[in-house]
């Protein structure tokens, strides 16, 4: 899949933003007034910034409001609803915390759950696609949710929770890579089933339909970045999990905490880049590629 910067930014930033909103909704850290304002501003900046970025790749962003209509079948539509509801509920909760010094805990809990639901619906947009076996697994939502919770705990300064959550996310990431590498083969789809000619012999793509490229190849058959995938996996793993955990183990210091957040963010963005660049869409088979 083509790793569009808009989608990588969106899933990385809004995942982190909604993760922070989850902890703020539960009352961690128990802040109020201006300190709370800064926390909420960061969370909203990330969540809303990410959502805005996601509209950049649309052909017609001015019609984006129509995406709220098909929640009965479409995960993308459900994601839109969850995001708006989470932001509205958490906005009301934030007013209480920041301006009135009141913690409406029921509202906070609802907002926290809606924030997690938003991350879950985002992950389901990818998970539902049978055409991309590497995404079509239970581990995809597990990865999105564990990343969001770990990043949220880190940003919320919840060191004691952040360390185990980062370790869980790291474990899910490894499982995802291990299972994902075998997903296309395990799906049973190959050029034989794609053409229906597999029972007659070995099928080979002899000639493509056009001498040039096309939308399908640009969007679904991204092979350029796969060359360095192994190195990038190591880099993203170290940045997203190893370094932040080491920095958190050291005695607390605001500079080190900031470094841990920046490292985690860069690592998750790299992992997300790989999530797209390494995903094989079965349509590539028709072109003799994967």
């Amino acid at each position, binding site marked *: 899949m083509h790793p569009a910067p808009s989608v990588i930014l969106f899933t990385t930033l809004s995942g982190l933003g909604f993760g922070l909103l989850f902890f703020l909704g539960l009352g961690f850290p128990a802040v109020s007034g201006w300190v709370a304002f800064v926390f909420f501003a960061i969370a909203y900046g990330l969540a809303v910034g990410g959502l805005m970025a996601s509209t950049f790749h649309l*052909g*017609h962003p001015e019609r984006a409001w*129509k995406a709220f209509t*098909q929640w009965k079948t479409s995960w993308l539509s459900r994601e839109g609803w969850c995001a708006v509801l989470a932001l509205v509920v958490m906005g009301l909760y934030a007013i209480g915390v920041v301006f009135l010094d009141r913690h409406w805990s029921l509202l906070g809990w609802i907002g926290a759950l809606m924030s997690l639901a938003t991350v879950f619906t985002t992950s389901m947009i990818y998970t539902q696609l049978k055409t991309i076996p590497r995404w079509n697994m239970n581990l995809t939502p597990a990865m999105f949710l564990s990343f969001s919770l770990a990043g949220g705990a880190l940003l919320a300064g919840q060191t004691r929770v952040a360390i185990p959550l980062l370790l869980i996310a790291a474990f899910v990431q490894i499982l995802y890579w291990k299972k994902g590498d075998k997903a296309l083969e395990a799906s049973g789809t190959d050029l034989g089933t794609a*053409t229906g000619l597999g029972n*007659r012999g070995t099928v080979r793509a002899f000639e493509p339909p*056009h001498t040039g490229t096309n939308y399908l190849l640009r969007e679904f058959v991204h092979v350029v970045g796969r060359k360095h995938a192994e190195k990038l996996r190591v880099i993203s793993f170290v940045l997203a999990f190893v370094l932040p955990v080491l920095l958190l183990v050291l005695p607390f210091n605001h500079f080190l905490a900031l470094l841990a957040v920046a490292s985690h963010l860069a690592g998750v963005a790299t992992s997300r880049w790989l999530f797209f660049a390494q995903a094989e869409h079965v349509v590539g088979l028709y072109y003799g590629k994967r």
Partner: protein
Amino acid sequence: MTQLPNSTERKMGLVIDLDTCVGCHACVISCKGWNTENYGAPLSDQDAYGANPSGTFLNRVHSYEVQPAEGHAQLIHFPKSCLHCEDAPCVTVCPTGASYKRTEDGIVLVNESDCIGCGLCAWSCPYGARELDKAEGVMKKCTLCVDRIYNENLPEVDRIPSCVRTCPAGARHFGDLGDPDSDVSKLVAERGGMDLMPEMGTKPVNKYLPPRPKDTVEDQIDILAPLLAPVAEEPKGFLGWLDKTLEKL
């Protein structure tokens, strides 16, 4: 609405004969020609006369080589367009309701004025049947020439999809695959018509007819063959002398 109908009154679709297709790409050209100037936004090209031409097509013809365990390899031309699936994943993923499947004939269409160009329907299609038009920013796909098949302004012979009307080899057939007595359904039953990627669970309406087995050459072609065998076995006269002389050298 992006909820799929439980059933459609008819299942209009194509039957593509892989035995007959000669790979001439005439269906590709006629499809582009008809659809760029009729239903919906035109099918744009980018850098059409430059070094890297690329454009939107609703129908593309691939060519595959099949090498059986024994015998000669076979070249199979393979036209591919929207299969108008009964369980079309491209419809249910659409967030705006722009994608829909018609209850009356099962045709899958895009309402372009509702399309936000998110591309998710193309992601969900295993067949590469949908292409986002670069100039218009909306999703384009085969309409089964919905503006031809019911068009009473056209002579009756032309009320079939453009690709079917054009095919010089007669490799493309159009009809109601939901009616077991239709010509296309009989053809599918007779020739063992198949689905592409059945494991995806999309239940395509369009069917592909597999190539027929190749003829085998018998040792004796016909009863007159022995009589046509060459009579002179050893060269005689000048040729005989030449043969012997050259042999000695």
